[in-house]
């Protein structure tokens, strides 16, 4: 009996379980200690949660792009963070123009609409040409090659935008309509955060219904499952792959404006960290699975926002918020070790790659 157990469990497993167990213990212990210490009041926690939801829903929107492209091409589009950056960075100039001419105060909804459209249009264009120029010629090449190309394209786009718009941070203009806060059911919520959450949820809903219900969406799902069979049904596979990039680009462009509304600045490097975080979110949720990516994004946003104070403050760590990225990526590593398919992921063994 004991021997059989010993044969089945390798020393690596034991080490992994020890690390996992240790981390779990730290999290639980840290949380209890923080709650006993009582540095934070309920209102703080509510603020953390709302901020986490806002940030997480932006991650979720970006993550859908990673996951859909993975679905159709089985590759990680590492330039997706730059697709996300290109939109709001370009739309910044529109926003600044509106601000200088006081349109932003007079017609805030119209202006926001235009900013969104410009941002989405730019991101869609970049995503479309990225696939056409950088990825399509490599279809059928070994999987490592498009991956390296994606990293190259990512740098190319970063420095293209640096060259075009300069290397400084640009401050997104304040939108007067989104200043201040509302009180909903006794909870104080910053207006811009509420708007970001609502807009992101609406966009996710629209994207999900598009993929599930529309003719193009169904064809994208068919192509994800079996390209050859899709072609035999008369589906133009290349066109559907382009459409996937277009849909993902639109989501990223919209997410970019929401991000700019939240953090009030744009920069040529702004896509890198959210891009990696959204990729993490897509893996957390199960890469290839759209609801999974959304769930993963919101979960990651929440943990990043609530986690540092909850897990680390009680352990006596000073300025725990600086460690939010460490928490996010530790979570990625843990998920890859203990549940490589993510929350909602399909079993990779069944799927033919």
């Amino acid at each position, binding site marked *: 009996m004991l021997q059989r157990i010993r044969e089945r469990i390798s020393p690596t497993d034991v080490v992994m379980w020890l690390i996992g167990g240790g981390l779990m213990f730290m999290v639980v212990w840290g949380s209890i200690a923080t709650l006993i210490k009582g540095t934070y009041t309920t209102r703080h926690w509510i603020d953390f949660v709302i901020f986490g939801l806002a940030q997480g829903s932006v991650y979720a929107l970006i993550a859908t792009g990673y996951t859909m492209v993975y679905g159709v091409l089985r590759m990680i589009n590492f330039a997706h963070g730059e697709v996300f950056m290109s939109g709001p960075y370009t739309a910044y100039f529109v926003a600044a123009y509106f601000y200088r001419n006081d349109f932003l105060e007079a017609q805030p909804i119209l202006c926001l609409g235009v900013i969104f459209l410009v941002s989405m249009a730019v991101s869609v264009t970049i995503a479309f040409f990225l696939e056409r120029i950088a990825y399509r010629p490599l279809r059928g090449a070994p999987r490592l090659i498009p991956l390296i190309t994606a990293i190259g394209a990512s740098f190319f786009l970063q420095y293209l935008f640096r060259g075009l718009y300069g290397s400084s941070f640009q401050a997104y203009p304040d939108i007067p309509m989104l200043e201040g806060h509302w009180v909903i059911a006794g909870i104080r919520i910053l207006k811009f955060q509420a708007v970001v959450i609502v807009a992101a949820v609406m966009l996710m809903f629209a994207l999900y219904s598009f993929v599930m219900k529309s*003719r193009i969406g*169904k*064809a994208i*799902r*068919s192509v994800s*499952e*079996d390209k*050859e*069979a*899709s*072609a*035999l*049904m*008369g*589906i*133009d*596979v290349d066109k559907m792959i382009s459409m996937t990039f277009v849909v993902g680009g639109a989501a990223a462009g919209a997410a970019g404006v929401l991000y700019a509304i939240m953090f009030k600045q744009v920069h040529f490097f702004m896509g890198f960290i959210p891009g990696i975080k959204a990729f993490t979110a897509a893996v957390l949720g199960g890469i290839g699975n759209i609801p999974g990516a959304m769930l993963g994004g919101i979960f990651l946003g929440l943990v990043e926002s609530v986690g540092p104070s909850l897990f680390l403050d009680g352990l006596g760590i000073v300025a725990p918020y600086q460690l939010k990225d460490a928490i996010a990526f530790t979570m990625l590593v843990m998920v890859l070790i203990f549940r490589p398919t993510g929350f909602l992921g399909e079993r990779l063994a069944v799927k033919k790659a």
Partner: protein
Amino acid sequence: MAMLEVEGIHTYYGLIHALKDVSVNVEEGEVVTIIGANGAGKSTMLKTTSGLLKPRKGSIRLNDEELTQLRPHKIVEKGVVQVPEGRRIFGTLTVMENLDMGAFICTNSQKNKKNLNRVLELFPRLKERSKQVAGTLSGGEQQMLAMGRALMTNPKVLLLDEPSMGLAPVLVDDIFATIRQLHDAGTTILLVEQNARLALQVASRGYVLQSGSVVLSDTAENLEKNEMVREAYLGE
């Protein structure tokens, strides 16, 4: 002039010369079968016809219209639709969504509804299961779905690749009864099959493929009597 004319095609897999000067004709309303052992090139022949593989030489024509250089979805638009080997239904989509994908090239909803009704009449089982995820269907039902999906555009020529593969004998009979039904309704069919006995029963003519070449072509009756065919493919 035959409806579908495959003339002298040579197809390669990398360095492997998979099809050597293969010519096959299918007349309108006819069921023609290609029989041959595993690896003889039967599926390669259908994949080349559907445009998934490009022949290095030779030509493929439908009613004298050149298909050879067209991409697969364009060939479907011309009216040549394949039911691939191993069914290849979209397992995560529902039965109805699978059928919708079969009609992807046609946006005329009236026409689609008519074709859908025809397919559901042919396979009433699919109607009962229309909301079910296709991956949960039984093997026989999946084959029905694969055929129904291909019939959604009312193709001029239907290419069937090993429809009996992996099915229980009872279900094989069902599938062949359906092929007969389709033939009676006037569908032109090119059938690739390892089960030569059944194939020769539904077909009017047949080709025997051996390591990439057509070694014999005759009416189904004569092929059934042929010494070589009987020995090699009918197991007598």
